[in-house]
Structure formats: C-alpha cells, structure tokens
C-alpha cells in the first residue's frame, strides 16, 4: 500500500552534489522538439517538467520522480524499443512503473518519446486530465496502471513469461522504489522470476534511501540489499543512478530470455538536481507554490550551469 502525504516544502539549504551529468540547456518546458537534445539535456528537461507538474492542483511526488529522472531518461531515450505511433507493437519492450507515484517522471519520459504532447503535461492532476497522480491504463505507453506498491514485479514476471512463451523479442523492465521493497509481494515475485530463469525481466530499484518518514535504514532496514537479491537468485548490478554512462553499461549487460534475471540497484538521491529537495524526506510529495516553484527551478538551473 502507498500512503502518500502532501507537504509544502519550506526553504531548505542547498546541498551540493557532484555528478557526471552533461550540461543542460534552458529550453522552455513546452518545447517538444527532442531530436537534437542529448540524454543529459532530456533529463534536465524532465526535471523541469516534474517541477512544473508539482505546481498542479495537489502537487506531485517530486522527490521520487527526480531520483528516477536519469534512469528513466536513459531507458526511454536509449534503451526501450518502442513505437509511439503503434503503442501496442507486439515486439516492443514493456516498461512497468511499479513505483507509480513517480508518474510525473513517466509522463515526461513518454512525452519526450512522442507518446504525449508536451503541452498535455500542464494538465497533470487537473479535473478530467489523463495524467493522474498514479498512471492510468488508458494512457498510451502505460502497460499497467500502478500506484499500490508491490504489484509491478509480478506483472513483469507474467509479462516476461508470456513474451518467452510467445517468442516475442521484447523485454520487460520494472522500476521499483526502495521503500516498496518492504512489500512482501515483491519477494514472491522475485523468488519466482529467478526460479523460472526469466532473463527477459529486468528489475530496477531506485535506491534513494528515503521513505515518507525518513531513512529506510532507520524505518525498515533493507540492507544488505544486494545480498537479499542475490540470495533470491538474481544477478545484481549496483550503479550510480545519476551516472548516465554507468546506467548505459548496466542496460547493455542484460541476459537472454532464459538467463538469470538482473536487478539494477541504482543508488540515487531523492529530489536529485533541486537543492531545495535533495535528500529531503519532505520532498516526497510537494505542492509547489509559484514562489517555491521559482526558487526550485532557479536552483535546478544553477546546478546544471555549474556542471556545464
């Protein structure tokens, strides 16, 4: 179960984090021309769009969307084989956002890939919009509606099993939050994926180390996390979840459909890229007032300028 709480973030001291990201431009969020952007630029655009969606009627899950931004951008820009003009293309890769509360990041990724017009992101959370706080099934590019934690990996097991059975070439990817791993159903699915040798299934853990009430290790410890997955029969790749090259390398090293499944544990920073929110548990769900949005965006852009 997910119990999102909404808080209005107050001013937090900026925190500096060295990253390997490339320079990001300051394009307007509504600019849907994506062809010439680098992946790093797309990630920066995604962060701006997440902040923009946080200004919606009831805010959004800012922290966990920002922590997933780099890995989602690499997935959607460089890894997933998709056809936006044919969302049900049988040989597509299947992506399941098990941490459905990061929907804002997913919408930005789908928009960048051409599944949604970028202008539609402005409708996030508004009455009658297709863009809910957790993804709905009617949205092109969404394989399953998610939001209740602990469902996605089983869906991925069934999907990968069916892909293998029907001989289709697509792979299944499931992105989970680290707090989500406290759901027992995750481990039912983990056990079965390894037992069935579903190499076509890849799990990704956004290891941002914060759940709503604080540090995962203080609330319900997950460590040794890599050891847990290994003991369940998975191959573990631990990477810096904000290092695009490291993410690329991990996604390039995946097994075939009868291999040992891989879990990529992506070490991330909750709120990554926005000094106001980085490593702040209160960034979990935030409604950004105009003033807060202005400061958050300025912090994000200043950070990216310094790294360019």
């Amino acid at each position: 179960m997910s119990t999102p709480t909404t808080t209005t973030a107050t001013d937090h001291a900026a925190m500096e984090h060295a990253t390997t990201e490339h320079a990001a431009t300051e394009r307007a969020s509504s600019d849907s021309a994506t062809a010439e952007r680098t992946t790093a630029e797309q990630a920066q655009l995604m962060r701006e769009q997440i902040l923009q969606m946080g200004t919606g009627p009831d805010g959004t899950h800012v922290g966990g969307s920002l922590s997933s931004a780099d890995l989602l951008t690499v997935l959607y820009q460089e890894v997933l084989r998709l056809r936006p003009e044919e969302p049900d293309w049988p040989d597509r890769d299947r992506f399941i956002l098990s941490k459905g509360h990061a929907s804002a990041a997913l919408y930005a990724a789908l928009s960048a890939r051409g599944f949604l017009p970028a202008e539609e992101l402005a409708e996030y959370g508004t009455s009658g919009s297709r863009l809910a706080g957790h993804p709905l099934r009617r949205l092109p590019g969404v394989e399953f509606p998610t939001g209740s934690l602990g469902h996605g990996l089983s869906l991925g097991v069934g999907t990968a099993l069916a892909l293998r059975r029907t001989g289709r070439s697509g792979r299944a990817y499931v992105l989970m939050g680290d707090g989500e791993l406290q759901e027992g159903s995750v481990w039912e699915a983990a056990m079965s994926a390894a037992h069935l040798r579903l190499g076509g299934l890849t799990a990704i853990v956004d290891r941002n180390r914060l759940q709503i009430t604080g540090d995962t290790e203080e609330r319900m410890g997950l460590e040794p996390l890599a050891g847990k997955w290994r003991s369940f029969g998975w191959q573990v790749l631990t990477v810096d979840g904000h290092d695009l090259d490291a993410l690329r390398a991990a996604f390039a090293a995946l097994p075939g459909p009868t291999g040992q499944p891989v879990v990529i544990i992506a070490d991330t920073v909750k709120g990554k890229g926005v000094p106001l929110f980085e490593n702040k548990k209160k960034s979990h769900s935030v409604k950004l007032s105009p003033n807060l949005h202005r400061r958050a965006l300025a912090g994000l852009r200043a950070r990216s300028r310094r790294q360019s």
Partner: protein
Amino acid sequence: MTDWQERYATATRDVYRATLLDIAKSDTRVFCVDTDMGGLEDGFEAELPDQYVNVGIAEANLMGVSAGLAAEGLLPFANTIASFAATRACEQVKVDIAGNALPVRIVGTHGGFSAGHYGPTHHAVEDVAIMRSLPNLTVLVPADAAETEYAVRALADTEQLPGPVYLRLGRKATPLVHRGPYTFRIGQADLLRPGRDVTLVASGPVPVAESVAAAELLAGRGIAARVLNLHTVKPLDAEAVLSAARETAGLVTVEDHLVTGGLGGAVAELTAAHHPCRVHRIGVPDGFHDQVGTETELLARAGVTAPAIAGAAEEVMRERN
C-alpha cells in the same frame, strides 16, 4: 445410473481439471497458473508442460503473473483456494486483473464451507460479495460437476467473455442437479422447476440441491415453488429474478455464503430498486465460523437445509396473504 450421472458423480474441481486440460490441448492460449494446489501437476503439467507454471505458494504473485500473461494475449487460469483468491490476493485481483478488464479466469476451489473440517482459514463465505463488488468481473458458481464443465468450456470463449471471471468451485462430490444435457448460458438463470406460489433462488451445489428438495417438500403441502439456479451471480439475470418477484409471493435466496453481499444481497438490491417484495435470505450468518464439521453439517447449522428453506417459503407466503 445413466452415463451422465456416472460421468458427473464427482467434485466440481475434478471435472474442472479434466475440462481445462481438454480445452488447453486445442487452445494454446490456455495457460494453467498453479499455486501448488496439488492435482494440476499430475494431469495438466505432465501433459502440457509448456502451458503450465507453478508460481509457488504465493497468491498475490499468482494474480499479478496472471494479469501479465493475459495482457500478452494468453488465457490464464489462476488456480488457488477461493478464500485466498478473494481475501489474500484481493488487491491484485482488483487492480491488476479487474481494473484492466483482463481475461484472467480466477478459479477458486473450497468455496463456501466445502473445506469442511479444515476450518475458517479455508472457508470462503465472503468471496462472492468481494468478487461481485469488483469491476468487470463475471462471477460464476456452478451447481454441480456437469455445470462446471459447461462453465469451463464457456470460459475459453474470449469473444463472449473478454473480461475476467471468478469461477467458484467446491471440493467434494455433490448431488447432480440435472439428469442430462441442458442449456447453459452465462448470465441466464437456470429454471429448475416452474411454480407460481413462491420462488427459491439458489446458487452453489448444496444450496441448489437443498432448494430442489425443499420444492418437493412444498409440493407435498400443496405449494408450487419455482426454483432458479443462479449459477451466474454477476451479471445477475434481472429478468428472471424480477419475473419471479412479480409472479410469485416472494423470494427465498439460498447460498453457501454470507447472507450479506452475495446472491441474497444482489437479489435484494435488484428487487428493492425495481420491484420491492419480500426477500428472505438464507445463508451463513455474520461471524467467524470456527466450528468443526462437514460442509453439509456446517451449512445445516446455518440453516441451509430443505426443511428450513421450505419453512421460509411458507413464511413468505403467509406474510404476503
């Protein structure tokens, strides 16, 4: 004993397994998803290993995996115990299967009190209420082994049934309702006995059998009781139920399930909205029924017996007069 009686003198779950294997041989979409139930590995897995997976004793996983399989165009039959399907894995059924209107066939054995002395952890007396409340789900409760075969064959038709189905089965052999072939249609009540005085509306093996016996008792007292087998609890056959409400003194619902939320609840909701009439609900009363007994003993304690049903029917008629 006729061939029919000989063939179907078995438990609903046994004929289910045989029928599932039979349809899977010609329909390669059929995929048997097991949770270590026992009984599917010898027949189904042994013959069709490529259409079988055991996901472990893990019912949440069962439902999620089945949703994934169905989304890819397969026709999964998700096998567990009724109680585990409806309560333990309820959220996966709601969100992953029902919410997506995926053609998963959720098959729950040990429906009602059919687990007998296993006790309340293995009884399912709230499953119909839960499944009936979930979107897009068709809820089937076959009355005997023959009806189970009709139902399972109907489940392979994804044009008629593109969404999810909950099929509730028992555990041991129960009396046969029909003596030979008949017309079975999902969503259409099975008129077992005509009658203009009062109507017995039943679902489930023992409730249907006891209702037929109750109609015999009532006939001996000069009362013509109509008997409807509601093998499909959702969608309910509104026409059959409302006709009975209009044409007879009232309705007695009989089920091996709580008197709230199941067949009796569905009938009461329908009649309250369209033709208010007396509805006497017979079934399992509220409570955690941690008593030891066989299926029929436990149901008898709940009042699911021919004499009690006949008595309720007479009461309905007296109140009408």
